[in-house]
């Protein structure tokens, strides 16, 4: 249970505070309601590139990292398809430094062509390091446009292509900043050894005079219901074949979300999970196997992925994955198996509540979804799922015409 207090500034900035007196630290999280899904299809990767520029200085703070380090702090950020999230932690007595830094870059980011060019180079190297110069690194660059026809989830946060990053202009940067980086489009959370009243005072002082812009009321094209199975093969210089199967599923705020999440756990979370126990250990068809949900705010994907041993024909291996998934449609889970995956949810949420940074992040993320208290209802929401819900949701997800398959292998396995 993460208790919190909320205060909304006149300019729309939502401020939430959780007090934890057992730590000497304070964690500060700022979530901006903008992600890769808000990008233009010919300017992809921009939200993430922009995140890099947020560390390149603002009107009164030429060196963001340097100033934070001076206060004993450390920070980072990430961009997803849905959001851009900045987080830092520092000794609680230096909390005000965080407000000075975060408010200055929200108010007046410094723009320059040189900084843009350098970060374009850095992000290009990130693109190469994480996606192009890794075995299987580009699989998701292929998988997204296969699974999605129209929704912007069809591109990855890094972008469709390096050329998009290269082509970004300073004007793009300015426009993006003015559209999305303002108090009404942000959520600020603080957790740690802090007084709520003090945090609200600091928020008024440092963020109070920043002008709000329009709330991001996005109108994204919904992904139409898929009507037939989609298949793709990719030939690459990799030692082993890998199969990716992606099924459309509901959005995070849908009542069936928790059942779908538990389905992925039943399949491949833990050594006793079905795919791991049966196809990796017993039948020894796969050397690695995995299942997970993308967990997006808009309707996302449930993914099953595995690397079959070369003795097994990839098509046959795919069929075995399908059969295990389909078994969840046909046969109900036992109470024990259902309880097992629910226990995991309870434990992992409890473990994460021992971390001030995780608490600040979660409060912001659930506040974005409507109410930070949704976070505290999670365990209960999972506990409510019944065996028949699992079967019903599995039947909705595991349909052949809801499936996109990628076969990723070398010249021996991909014809």
């Amino acid at each position, binding site marked *: 249970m993460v208790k919190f207090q909320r205060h909304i500034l006149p300019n729309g900035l939502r401020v939430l505070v959780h007090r934890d007196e057992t730590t000497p630290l304070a964690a500060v999280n700022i979530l901006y309601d903008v992600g890769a899904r808000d990008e233009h299809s010919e300017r992809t990767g921009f939200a993430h590139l922009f995140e890099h520029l947020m560390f390149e200085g603002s009107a009164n703070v030429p060196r963001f990292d340097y100033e934070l*380090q001076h206060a*004993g702090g450390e920070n980072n950020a990430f961009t997803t398809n849905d959001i851009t999230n900045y987080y830092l932690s520092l000794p609680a007595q230096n909390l005000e430094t965080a407000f000075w830094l975060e408010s200055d870059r929200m108010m007046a980011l410094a723009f320059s062509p040189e900084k843009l060019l350098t970060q374009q180079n850095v992000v290009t190297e990130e693109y190469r*390091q994480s996606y192009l110069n890794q075995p299987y690194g580009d699989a998701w660059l292929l998988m997204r446009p296969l699974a999605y026809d129209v929704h912007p989830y069809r591109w990855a946060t890094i972008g469709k292509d390096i050329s998009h990053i290269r082509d970004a202009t300073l004007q793009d940067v300015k426009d993006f900043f003015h559209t999305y980086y303002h108090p009404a489009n942000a959520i600020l959370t603080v957790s740690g050894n802090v007084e709520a009243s003090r945090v609200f005072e600091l928020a008024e002082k440092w963020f109070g005079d920043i002008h709000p812009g329009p709330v991001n009321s996005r109108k994204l094209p919904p992904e139409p219901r898929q009507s037939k199975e989609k298949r793709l093969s990719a030939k690459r210089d990799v030692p082993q074949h890998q199969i990716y199967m992606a099924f459309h599923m509901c959005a995070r705020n849908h009542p069936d979300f928790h059942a779908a999440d538990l389905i992925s756990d039943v399949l491949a979370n833990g050594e*006793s999970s079905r795919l791991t126990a049966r196809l990796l250990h017993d039948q020894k068809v796969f050397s690695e196997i995995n299942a997970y949900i993308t967990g997006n705010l808009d309707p996302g994907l449930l993914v099953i992925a595995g690397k079959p041993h070369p003795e097994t024909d990839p098509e046959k291996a795919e069929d075995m994955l399908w059969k295990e998934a389909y078994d969840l449609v046909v046969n109900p889970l036992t109470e024990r198996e259902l309880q097992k995956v629910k226990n995991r949810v309870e434990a*992992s949420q409890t473990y994460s509540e021992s971390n001030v940074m995780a608490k600040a992040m979660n409060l912001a993320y659930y506040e974005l979804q409507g109410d930070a208290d949704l976070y505290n209802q999670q365990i209960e929401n999972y506990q409510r799922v019944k065996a028949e819900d699992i079967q019903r949701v599995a039947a909705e997800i595991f349909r052949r015409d809801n499936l996109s398959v990628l076969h990723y292998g070398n010249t021996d396995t991909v014809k």
Partner: protein
Amino acid sequence: MPDRTQPPGKELIAGIPYIKPLGAKLGNGLPVYFLEGGTEEFVKIDLVFFAGSYFQYKPLVSFATTRLLRSGTNTKSRLEISELLDYYSAHLQLDAQKDIVSVSMYVLNKHLEPTLALLAEIFQDPVFPEDEMRTFLKNQQKIHIINQKKVEHLARTYFAELVYGEQHPYGYRLKPENFDMVERDDLLAFHRRWFTAANAFCIVSGRMPEKMEKMIAGHLGSLVAQPDEAAKPPRFQMLTSGSRKVKLEMPEALQSAIRIGKQLFNRTHPAFHRFKIANALLGGYFGSRLMQNIRQEKGYTYGITSNIISLVRSGYFFIATQVGADVSEAAREEIYRELKNLREKPATADEMESLKNYLAGSFLRSFDGPFAQAERFKELLVFGLDHSHYDEYLQTLKTITPELIMATAADYLNEDGMMEVVAGR
């Protein structure tokens, strides 16, 4: 309106709020330490055995023994063990390193009793079924082969071989055929010899339920105290001299992985603290010279880092990065330039203040909460140190000067003996 041109006032860190470990010794000789704290009803159990790859006669034996502990006992199959661990959502990690085997388990207090019983059983009574072992090794072999396609992995493993030599377990580079050479008897013997109470310690951290001590004694007190026959650990020759370079040509690579460094010392060495601080200035944090130069000014890389790694019988320093293949040579030159600067160019007042404050904050963060404190305490026990070691670090941090950093770099980071691997182009 606030004055935005001036940073708000800052206070320095006064000290670290250590949680005092309460020690006990079980009947079988296993030392156990309790670190109480935290807000949620769960604990972490750390078990450390001095049974890393240093103690093995054959590659992979420590790794396979460790990872296969949970693959079956006389009364439970692999699947039964896994089902119980998953059901109780015990987050169990079995990690075989160079010197130690590190076991850690998070578990909710309400599931503690049955989980501890299971943990004790897999340590006391593993049978290492032949079939489970073969499956595990075959799957690990596949992962190994995929890793050979990663420039970062190649640079890392070839670098260790350069620094310690191909005969020494600190330097040994695994080959695919090693995975076919492990026998079940190797694991049984290795387990019998090294996974004993006399060769281990335990740390329990978190918000403890009542009778925690009794529960631990009841379960972990039954671990075998001593091996019947105490075979000696193998002896290895460590390479100590020379300066060697390796270039691994990969014509298709988009990036090159670069690793430069040398054999040094571990955290028990008198110069360790000042070296650690000098290293931070060079490449130990985002504000470091290497990061600022090679990423933030030149844009050659997504990241670059340097560090000193402590092993029980040695230690080494390294710089690692992945850069665009077209700037591979330019990046190498910049790295050597920064090494030279560290020896010759005193840190500015700005650099010093930023470095000291950042390191103090980062040090405080590394002690945040009982689980982090358990981690830091474990490090002390492995090296036979106590908390005064950390006080000395803070003291060094307070008093270190630009001159001392330069002198440290001159003592330990000259180019003699520097090893270098470039994997890529």
